[in-house]
């Protein structure tokens, strides 16, 4: 898994590529914790290059969403499609996160 970080219009965009599972989730978890620490953090996680996500990945996303809520930060996800969307749906996670179709919409939603 690779995580690429960019700043777009005041939003920290994390592009996640590859597989999010028990081996790679801790790395994304650390990045999310770091970016969500900033006051009024605005974070978009782009999953359009993600192959799949296991429950270990959802565990760190839940932690990040709870942290964002506590810190009144914004956490938005985009590019949730195909296999990844199926797993979000299966776990009942689609309603739990703010999800947009495209990166542009995601940046706008996070701003």
């Amino acid at each position, binding site marked *: 898994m690779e995580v690429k970080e960019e700043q777009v219009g005041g939003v920290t965009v994390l592009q996640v590529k590859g*597989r999010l*599972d*028990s*081996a790679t989730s801790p790395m994304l978890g650390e990045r999310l914790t770091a970016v969500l620490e900033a006051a009024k953090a605005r974070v978009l996680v782009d999953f359009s290059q993600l*192959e*799949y*996500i*296991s*429950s*270990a990945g*959802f*565990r760190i996303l*839940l932690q990040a*969403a*709870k942290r964002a*809520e506590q810190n009144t930060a914004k956490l938005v996800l985009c590019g949730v499609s*195909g*296999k990844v969307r199926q*797993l979000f749906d*299966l*776990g*009942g*996670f689609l309603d*739990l996160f703010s999800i947009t179709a495209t990166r542009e919409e995601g940046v706008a939603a996070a701003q």
Partner: protein
Amino acid sequence: MNDAETTILNRREEFARVKESLDGLAAAHRIAAGVVADMQVALDEILTNIVDYGYTDGGEYEIRVRLRVLDNTLEATIEDDGQPFNPLEVPAPDTHAPLGERRIGGVGLHFVRNLMTDVRYDRVGDRNRLVLRRQLTA
């Protein structure tokens, strides 16, 4: 190559060898990416479960994973000598709870049961044997 067997120790760092083995078999048989993803997720969940809950004494144990391609089916057999544990008996998680009450426990096995075409558990002597089957047609 129709099957591949990998023996790993009960540590997360070892999972990579099982994943690579599955990738190799999948490439050789041109198995669809979605089918491979389903099996990778299922193996990640099952192996994590064994490592986290199968052993309580902190010791080093072996987990055996055999992958096979049969007629229109990808099959994984996972064997461990940890505590008896039947993943089919774990209740489905509450997938409607709000964020504050949402727990990840049970989600992994919920994935396994739903992504696989067939899951069979047997306790054989002092070993758990779990057979996961995924149809090759999406």
